[in-house]
């Protein structure tokens, strides 16, 4: 099996959306377009008790076919790479499960195979995770309550590219922040394979009290399709565009 291209949106936020369309619906749309949505809810290290407004985190990721996790700032680096890798595996497994059903003609998943065969299939999944191309669009909620967390976010993203660039497959990242009064989201880092030297990317930030997570996700999705168009115009052949494989 040949490794394809996986696309993910990684949303980093610390609260509930309060403006515009429902982010859960947009996430479902993204999934349908072959883009997985992962969500990480970032808590203050001092924060205690049940976090408010973060129920949405799980709902968005579920709809987006991705992985969600709520973490304290200090664990952000570990979590960002874990969530990304787990979502990759999840997507690949999903594709393999479809193949299995195709071949075996019945509803069968990897988990239902006898241990011997399962052992072989997980190696294939692992290989694909190592070799596939990955595109991650990072969408950072930069509303007022997130401001003091942004240095940690920056570190975590540098760490993410360190982890993923250790793979055989290639990676591309871009970073967007929201809200932006004119365009909903602002591109902070153009598509690149390195997220290590991002100086001053979160400097000029708006401090409006609104969090348009849904519209921001939709813009991120557009940004993805724009990228695909640019790629097509450059004549890059990508037969696996549709499903990611």
């Amino acid at each position: 099996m040949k490794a394809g291209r996986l696309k993910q949106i990684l949303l980093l936020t610390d609260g509930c959306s309060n403006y515009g369309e429902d982010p859960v619906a947009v996430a479902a749309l993204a999934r349908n377009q072959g883009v997985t949505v992962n969500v990480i809810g970032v808590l203050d290290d001092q924060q205690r008790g049940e976090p408010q407004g973060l129920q949405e985190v799980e709902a968005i990721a579920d709809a987006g076919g991705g992985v969600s996790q709520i973490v304290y700032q200090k664990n952000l680096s570990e979590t960002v790479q874990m969530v990304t890798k787990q979502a990759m595996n999840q997507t690949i497994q999903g594709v393999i499960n479809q193949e299995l059903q195709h071949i075996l003609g019945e509803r069968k998943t990897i988990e239902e195979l006898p241990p011997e065969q399962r052992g072989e299939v997980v190696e294939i999944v692992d290989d694909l995770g190592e070799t596939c191309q990955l595109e991650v669009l990072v969408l950072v909620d930069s509303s007022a309550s997130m401001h003091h967390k942004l240095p940690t976010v920056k570190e975590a993203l540098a760490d993410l590219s360190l982890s993923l660039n250790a793979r055989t497959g290639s990676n591309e990242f871009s970073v967007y922040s929201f809200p932006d009064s004119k365009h909903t989201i602002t591109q902070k880092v153009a598509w690149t394979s390195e997220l290590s030297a991002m100086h001053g990317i979160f400097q000029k930030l708006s401090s409006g009290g609104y969090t348009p997570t849904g519209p921001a996700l939709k813009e991120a999705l557009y940004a993805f399709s724009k990228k695909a168009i640019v790629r097509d115009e450059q004549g890059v052949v990508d037969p696996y565009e549709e499903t990611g494989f």
Partner: protein
Amino acid sequence: MKKPDFNLAAGTTIRGKWGHHVYHVVRKLGEGACGVVYLCQKNGVLYALKVGTESSRLMLEVNMLKKFSKVQGVKLGPSFVDVDDWIVNNETYPFYVMEFIEGQPFSVFLKGKKKEWVGICAMQLLSDLEHLHRSGYVFGDLKTDNLLVADSKVQWIDVGGVTAIGRAIKEYTEFYDRGYWGYGSRRADPLYDLFAVTMIMMETVYPNRFDAQKDPKKTLQDKLKSAPLPSEYKKIIAECWRGKYHSATEMKEALGQVLMKRAQPPKRSSRKSVQTDASEWGEMIGVSAIVLAFYGISAWNLWL
């Protein structure tokens, strides 16, 4: 990230769906990121049984265990015994069974021991790593949590991080990860494990570990400077970080030289001799015997 949300009581029977083997739970041994490990017994033999929910992760571990139960005649990690599914309350839980390693956690073992043991354990690890690296793999998630000491020999138990050389390290823990400290990539090469060995040595004197702070490299250098470790070890650690050692073998040899030197019997005239008591002597002899065994030299030749 999910763990099975059950706690199996002693006496619970775990029956395999495919192989029909039956295991009886004795007690819980520990818990990890992807499963719970129980001490079990079957036909009077004790085993370690790991049950989880993440089938694929468990299967990858099984594949590794199978591969490394024996590499070139050397045992690296617990032997593999069985893999199966357990159905309970209409839920299927994958599990695997391996050899039970009856040992002490690394940190417990080192408590109250002389600092030589830090070097000896590091050497033992490096010897096993030599074999692993030679067969084309890197341990990856090398950390004290994954080490048990049985019969004065360090053994690793969790092979979940074992990664083919050239690939992305599968699992790591920040404190032991060279990437976290700014000392290189997370691509598997033998030196990745050597770095983790130095961090295990550091941890013996910083049991609570420490964070990278603003400048990871500087933090680490400062911590090394003030570490209450023998200066010869500190030198080797620093050299490892500087990239002086290109293989487990090279680092092992450097450590071996230091250990051999320190294992010499103290001279009557030295001021230390006053404090040297019988028990310390006994340990010294034990220490040198192990070191010499590493070199395949008979201890008697030197001592008599």
